[in-house]
C-alpha cells in the first residue's frame, strides 16, 4: 500500500483578505469555489485584484471554474518526522477547465504518493482555518484507503 499525502493542520491559520479577495472567502464559507472573471472581457485573473490585466476593467463576476486538473505538484517530507514513519505534504498547482489562464496553488490531500500525475483530475474538499473554510483538493475517485 502506498503512503498517502496528509492534510495540513490549518486550524491556527488566520486567513487575511482585502476587498478584492473577500468574495472568494465568502463563497468558500458556503463550500463553493469561485474565481474572479472580468465582467467586461471575460478574462480570469488570479489572485483577485483591482484590475483586469487584459482590459483594466474593475468589474468582476465570480464564477465556478469547472473541473480541476493537476498542472504540477511536489512532494514534501514533513520536517522532523521519524525516518521510519515519514509523512508527506503535496503542494499542488491546479488549473481549471472553465477558467483558462489561472492556477490555484493548494494542498492535495489523501493522495497515494506514487499515484499522482500531471493532468489528473481533482475535486475540491474543505479544511477549517481559524476564521475561514479553505479549499484543498483530492484526486477524483481515488481508490479506497486500505
Amino acid at each position, binding site marked *: 500500500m502506498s503512503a498517502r499525502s496528509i492534510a495540513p493542520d490549518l486550524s491556527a491559520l488566520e486567513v487575511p483578505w482585502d476587498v478584492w479577495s473577500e468574495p472568494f472567502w465568502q463563497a468558500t464559507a458556503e463550500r463553493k469555489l469561485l474565481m474572479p472573471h472580468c465582467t467586461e472581457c471575460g478574462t480570469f485573473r488570479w489572485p483577485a485584484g483591482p484590475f483586469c490585466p487584459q482590459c483594466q476593467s474593475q468589474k468582476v463576476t465570480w464564477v465556478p471554474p469547472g473541473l480541476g486538473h493537476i498542472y504540477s505538484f511536489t*512532494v514534501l517530507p514533513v520536517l522532523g518526522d521519524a525516518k521510519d514513519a515519514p509523512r508527506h505534504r503535496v503542494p499542488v498547482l491546479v488549473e481549471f477547465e472553465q477558467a483558462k489562464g489561472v492556477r490555484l496553488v493548494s494542498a492535495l490531500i489523501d493522495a497515494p504518493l506514487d499515484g499522482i500525475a500531471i493532468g489528473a483530475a481533482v475535486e475540491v474538499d474543505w479544511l477549517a482555518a481559524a476564521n475561514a473554510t479553505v479549499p484543498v483538493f483530492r484526486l477524483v475517485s481515488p481508490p479506497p484507503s486500505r
Partner: protein
Amino acid sequence: MTRAARGGEAAIVGAGATPYYFRGQSHPQTVYELIGKAILAALADAQLTLDDVDGFTFFAAGFDPGTIAEQLGIRRLTFSHIVSGYGSGMAGILDLASMGIETGRAKTILCIGAAQQVGRRYGQSLANFGVTPDNVFHRIAGLSGPGQALALSARRHMHLYGTRREAFGEIVLASRAAAATRETAIRRKPLTMDEYMASPMLADPLCRLDFCLETDGALAFVVTSAERAADLPQRPVYIAGAAQVGTRDWGRAFFWLNQSDEAFTTAGAGPVAQRLYEMTGLGPKDIDVALLYDHFSPLVIMQLEDYGFCKRGEGGPFVESGAIRLGGSLPINPHGGHLSEGYVVGMTHIREAVEQLRGTAVNQIKNARIALVTGGPAPIPMTGAILRNER
C-alpha cells in the same frame, strides 16, 4: 551602434570578498562589517581609496548607504541606486553602475551584495513573510521556500520534455568537480551519480543536493570608466551590456505561480537574453564561459534554453552530453557556483567572471574573452550581463 561596438564604457577594476561562511557562521561579525571588509578588499584590489568612491549600487533588499558611509567614512556620494529585483536583479547592479559612469553622475561606483543568515534562512524565506491575501495560498499549500516552489517548474519541465533527474545530477556533479580545486568553495568533495541519486528528496523531484548552499558573505566590485581603467593596475573587465527586463508573463515568478504557460517551465530569462544580445551585438556562440544562477540545479537547464545555448526542452540532453564541464563546449560555473562554492545571491558569479576575464581564475577557461552572468528567476526585473576583456 551597439554598446559592444562602441567598446563598453564602464569597466570592473576591482573585486573584493569576505570568506564564504556556512549559514550563520559569520557571527559575531555584523553584515555591515562583512560589507565593509568586501569594499576595502575591492578598493585595495583596484588600488583606489574610499576617497575615490562616489557611487553605490545594490539590488533589492539591499543595504543602507548611510550606515556604510558612516561606518567606513565615505565623504560624498553622488549616485546611490537599487535594482528592484532581488536575486533576479543581481546582475542589474552592473547596469546601474554603467548608467552612473556613462552619464557622468559618478566616477567610481561600488556594486555591493551580501548575505547573512543568523537566526533566519533563505531556504525558508517564503514562510518568513507575514501572511497576506495573496501569499496565504502558498501557506495553505505548504510552500515555505523557493526550492519547494521551483520544484513545480522542474516537474513540469520533466513532464513536457522528458528531462531526467540524471541531468539535474550532472549539474551538481559538474559543479562539485569544479569546486574540488577551488579553496573558497564550501562543498569540495567529489560526488558520484549514485551518491546523488541516494540523496534524500526535499521537494520531489528535487533532492537535497539540488538545493544550493546557504552562505554568509559579502562581495563588492569597483566600476569606473574604461578610460580611467586603462591607468589602473588590474586588467579591466568591460561591461559590454547589462539588461533589466520585466514582463507580465513572469511577474512575481514563483511567488505568483500564474506565469504564462510558455514561461512556467523557463527561468524567466528569455526576454533578458534577447535584450542583452541586442544591446551587445553578441549571441550565445560568443560566450566563452557562463556564470548561471544555480540556486537549484534545474534552473541551469532552463537558463541554457532561455539564453539560446540549446532549444527549448533540450537543456537536459545538452547538460548530459558533458557540455557544461570544464573543457566542455560551454563551461558553466567553473567556481562551483551556488551549488558547491557558496550562495551570496549571485554575487560570487560576478567575481568568477572577473577572474576568468583577468585570466586569474582557479579553473581558468583558456582564452576566455566573453562571460555571461545571470540573475536568478524571481520577481521582475530579471537581469543579466555580458562582460568582456577586450574593448
